[in-house]
């Protein structure tokens, strides 16, 4: 339905953030993101727009949750 990819913020300038995923850099718009990201945050990017800002910790937390889950065999 809605292909969106987390990308790391490497620059923020006004309505535009420069973001990176695996070394591929792109500019995305910040018009509709829930919270203006800071450098080092991840944003979820859809159709050239950031739609969500996540701190690095959040990504780690959900991974840990899954690890936790996997232990409950």
């Amino acid at each position: 339905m809605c292909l969106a990819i987390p990308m790391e913020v490497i620059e923020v300038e006004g309505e535009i953030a420069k973001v990176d995923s695996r070394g591929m850099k792109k500019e995305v718009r910040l018009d509709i993101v829930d919270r203006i990201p800071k450098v080092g945050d991840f944003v979820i990017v859809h159709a050239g727009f950031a739609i969500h800002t996540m701190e690095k910790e959040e990504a780690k937390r959900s991974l840990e949750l899954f690890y936790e889950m996997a232990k409950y065999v």
Partner: protein
Amino acid sequence: MKWQNTFDPFRSRETVKGLHKVLLREVERPVRIMEVCGTHTMSIFQHGLRELFPEKLKMISGPGCPVCVTSQGDIDTMIGLSREPNCRLVSFGDMLRVPGSNGSLRDAMAQGAKVHIVYSPMDALEIAKKFSDDEVVFLGIGFETTAPSIAATIIRAKKEKIKNFSVLSTMKLMPPALHSLFSQEDVEVDGLLCPGHVSAIIGARAYVPISEEFKIPCVIAGFEPADILAALILLIRQIKNGESKVENAYERAVSWDGNERALEIVKKVFYPVDVTWRGIGVIPQSGLSIRKEFEEFCARKKLGLKIKELPEPKGCRCGEVLKGAITPPMCPLFKKACTPATPVGPCMVSSEGICHAYYRYGFADNDSGG
């Protein structure tokens, strides 16, 4: 290298192996789970997860591919528009090969239609500035995830006073569709894998009415293999426990209230209307139309478009497929008259369409979708 360290574990064999074991153990009796979202469908096929699912777990694909649910009338309107001499269409790549009653946009291009493929709706504004003699119409397809970006584009067009730009909105809303779907008799689903990025906008809260009214467990999932497995585990557990609550297995992207800023931008530009979903019919308040304040950017009004609802292609059973009533191989046209090179229904053309996914990634010709 931070990106990879952060996100590759979500698709590593190690992470998945553990969750997979849990899932196998948890599924004790047959369950039918609907993944509404086409991106979930794609992810499941692409990562070969269907091979990992226990036999008793049956995945049904819902109406969550925006191309697939676009009505024949809307498609024909788009293609008809592309044939107007002073019209220039801007579209996401997804729409290009969708068959109208008289060829696709790709065919219209060969016949002279001017169609630009973009990755972002904002690109349409640059095109409008460059081709100022043409009316540049953006084909606004998508769900709640895409709507804010299109709304933001319209707001910007207004600010920049771009006169030759408009949007043909066929945008749709997920909760009314789910409501309508579960109200139908022939839809039998034990649990709902809720779309991750729609939920990033509308928030987890949006599924509460559905889970309550239809007593259906709802779990919001991300798109990595680990995300999907974890969400399925949570769903199976709810089913086993006889629960029907909303759980969020994609907290890194989805909050309870959603993206309120985006929702406000959408509300500023659009209002909900009744629209036709392919194979399902008219669903009340399930589409987005452009408000009077922005009507100069509404292609329907500006160009006086009349959408004529047309019968769907003969023999195509997209409607039933989209409701989860049948799997694609049960359609008599599947892999025969209907292939990705010669699609009959939109479910075969969109790369996240379920028929396409079955064709492209599936093994058995008569795979019953297990």
